[in-house]
């Protein structure tokens, strides 16, 4: 190998993580915002692009790796999590991110999402959920709400949608978070937490599709209204929301569900719930909060330290400790 100049990774900026490829998403696509946040996060993390891998499936979101200066593998529909597992088995030292849409993660590749999560493979799974099939021109997806009119459901979809956070918790994920594309002060923090977690990190990013499903998430990713429609979770902090932080969530022990209260009307016997991201039961209750009626929880919903898969299997490095002598004794 020829001598290669070593870059000072600490001096890398967000721009250093962009590739020379022309970005081909539709103008106004939420994916641009996620890409921007990701570049910032990668620069902050401070690892060389040469030690980072982005693996993607198929769909609009899955073009993501082409637009970064890291190693990238644009694979086949739904299988990115399985490919990423193989990458980690071969070289556990790499930082591996998996990018996919609701088709990739929740439909054709639902099985791989389930197993990557329960195995706790050290990969970061980013679900770009736009609740529609964009690249195939607008069919309803498994996360589309009932009644979604699309080319394949002209009379409106009748299928109950999958709740991605509920799915991830049910699959045994040890790190489950949610963010939204446009919330650029919030999204990078969630991505950094996902990266810091050793194990499978699942992040649902609510992403607007301007062409086929504009406004699907309503006020959630509308920056001017988002504070009313979402609750930003902080471990150890009370779950308050609203522009004036005038509302909050109370946990009803009898029903096992959260209730919305205005702080002014808070009864003396009630207290605003404190977010405990290690509490699985509360995480399940948070997963149920949907618009309208409830603020959608954003941030780290659940995080629990657990043994990572490849390490538990006892694999490390890339070289073999085996040579001819071991082979001879085996034979």
């Amino acid at each position, binding site marked *: 190998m020829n001598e*290669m100049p070593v870059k000072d990774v600490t001096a890398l900026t967000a721009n250093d993580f962009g590739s020379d490829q022309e970005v081909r998403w539709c103008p106004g696509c939420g994916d641009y915002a996620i890409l921007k946040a990701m570049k910032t996060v990668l620069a902050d993390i401070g690892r060389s692009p*040469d030690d980072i891998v982005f693996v993607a499936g198929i769909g609009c979101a899955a073009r993501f790796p*082409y637009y970064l200066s890291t190693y*990238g593998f644009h694979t086949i529909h739904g299988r990115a999590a399985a490919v990423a597992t193989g990458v980690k088995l071969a070289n556990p030292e790499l930082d591996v991110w998996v990018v996919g849409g609701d088709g990739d993660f929740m439909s054709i590749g639902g099985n791989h999402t389930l197993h990557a999560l329960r195995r706790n493979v050290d990969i970061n799974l980013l679900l770009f959920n736009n609740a529609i099939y964009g690249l195939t021109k607008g069919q309803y997806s498994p996360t589309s709400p009932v009644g979604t009119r699309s080319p394949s459901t002209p009379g409106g979809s009748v299928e109950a949608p999958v709740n991605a956070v509920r799915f991830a918790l049910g699959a045994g994920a040890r790190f489950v978070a949610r963010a939204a594309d446009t919330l650029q002060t919030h999204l990078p923090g969630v991505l950094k937490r996902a990266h810091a977690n050793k194990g499978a990190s699942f992040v649902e990013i609510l992403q607007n599709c301007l062409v086929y499903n504009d406004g699907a998430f309503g006020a959630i990713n509308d920056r001017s209204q988002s504070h009313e429609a979402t609750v930003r979770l902080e471990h150890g902090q009370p779950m308050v929301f609203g522009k004036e932080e005038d509302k909050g969530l109370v946990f009803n022990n009898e029903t096992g569900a959260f209730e919305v209260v205005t702080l002014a009307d808070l009864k003396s016997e009630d207290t605003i719930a404190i977010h405990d991201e290690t509490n699985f039961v509360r995480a399940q209750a948070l997963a149920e909060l949907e618009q309208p009626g409830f603020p959608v929880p954003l941030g780290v919903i659940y995080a629990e330290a657990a043994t990572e898969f490849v390490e538990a299997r006892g*694999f490390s490095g890339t*070289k073999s400790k085996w040579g001819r002598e071991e082979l001879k004794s085996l034979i």
Partner: protein
Amino acid sequence: MSDTAIAPDAAGAAKASPLVVRFAGDSGDGIQLAGYEFAKSTADAKSDFMTFPDFPAEIRAPVGTLFGVSAFQIQFGADEVLTPGDRADVLVAFNPAALVTNLQNLKSGGVLIVDESSFDARGLKKAKLETNPLEDGTLEGYQVITVDVVKRTLEALDHLGLGRKPATRAKNLWVLGLVYWMFGRPLDTTLDWLTSKFKQSPEVAEANITALKAGHAYGETLEISAFPNLSTPRVAKHRKGKSRIISGAQAMALGLAAVAALGKRDIVYCSYPITPASTLLHALARFDGGVRTFQAEDEIAAISAALGASFAGSLGVTASSGPGLSLKTEAMGLGIAVELPLLVIDVQRGGPSTGMPTKPEQSDLTMAIHGRHGEAPLPVLAPATPDDCFWIIIEAARIAIETMSPVIILTDAYLANAASDWELPDVDSVPDIDWPAVTSNGEDFQPFTRDPDTLARPWVAPGTPQHAHRIGGIEKAQGSGHISYDPANHQEMTSLRAEKVSKVADRLPPIELEDGPEDGDILVIGWGSTHGSIAQAAKELNAEEKRVAHVHLRHLWPLPRGLDELIKRFPKVVTAELNTGQLCSILRSEYLAPVTCISQVSGQPFHVSDLKAEITKRLEATVT
């Protein structure tokens, strides 16, 4: 019914020709264990041999049923033994069902050992028999030894106070003891194995050892001179050096270990359990290094993870059987498009669909060569014998890395399970497997530039400084690898991918006849696991001065250089395949040659006698 005396051995002791022994019984009777122990003892006796376990798909079929019969066959001799043999000289039947389903596999005049304990009304009914074959004349023409094995085993173990059920379980060892006596074999190897196997439960060891010895002792009460032919030593003088018993699956596992050792790099083996490929996963999972195994959630995840491992710089390997291979084809297309090395092992079985999961067939050849979307060629190899499974894995790994392409290896249920004596390879004489060095300094690195000789692109794994790049399934521009929908580029890339695979043939040794005259009257072309049967048939026909040439293909795609000319030299050319003529039709379309096919899809390997008869018929026909 009393234990019967036996007639003198009709064959006599004059010539120590190869012998075939077959054990048949319930899948819960320990048939495979008895067979395997007999094979070990055959190796100790320094005979050449080959075995074939023939078992049902059901794990524990209801006792005594026809579909629950499991069998194990071995042929051994002083000369080179190429097959497990057609029909048996000695058949051991543990119950009526085993007798009924296996009697056709016994030579006329052969020795039949029958456990009569279950030849009661119930046992006969389960085997769908109206009358008792031990009494109705069915067994005329055989040398029959009937023993109430259960009764005798229970008597032998009586003093241990085990109870009827656990004691009955040792009946396979009682029978093995009797068989050892008939073949003049010492008990040592099996005794040692039992002692070590049941170290934790000495009472089980003692029960089995007692049963083995009791069966052996029972033999001595029979006419001692009855079977001189069976006990004549058959020492294989052509065998030199150290050897061990090896099945195709074990050889393949060792081959994968060898790839790791020779490449000094762990390989990643990903698979989803499927019969008959799972034995490979089991064997690999026991190694404590070299191969990183991953039991994936499904067939697609298995190949996807393997490809991910290859992307990350390891060699990814996946294995399955026909239905699983179907599921893997999309990912194989990706492997071809991104040009990464990958090994895909297909342990073929009777199909389509679930078909006959434990029975061999060679019916995935067309799928392996052509069965993908788009123009997607890849090299296809097939090992010929159990020990070749070791070498072909190493060869396939070299081809995959050298070519930057997925490679399919076609084996089958017969090769995976058949075992033979294997002369240990000289590991030091096998060259290293070189992982390609990164030759660029990273400035303006182009992942789809090509080696002028092999047309392979550089393999640069994540973690390599200054080389970060992106690959994917979308068509890439030659050189830069950037997304390209340019018509001329797709034309060029399609041709390059095909030419790259075709060039593999340039690096293969020239095709050679395995047997028979260069100007013979007929050329028999085989591939894969049928090697032994075809080679034996050709050998015997040539001994009868029939002028039969045999060529056996280990490389199915690209086809070896010179095969075209070879085929056209012979007036008659026939393939022998366990399918309905897949290689035949490929040869016809590639070479415009009037090749015909000897086809069999019974779920059984070819019998040598059937092949001989069929080849002879083709020789005699005016038109093939």
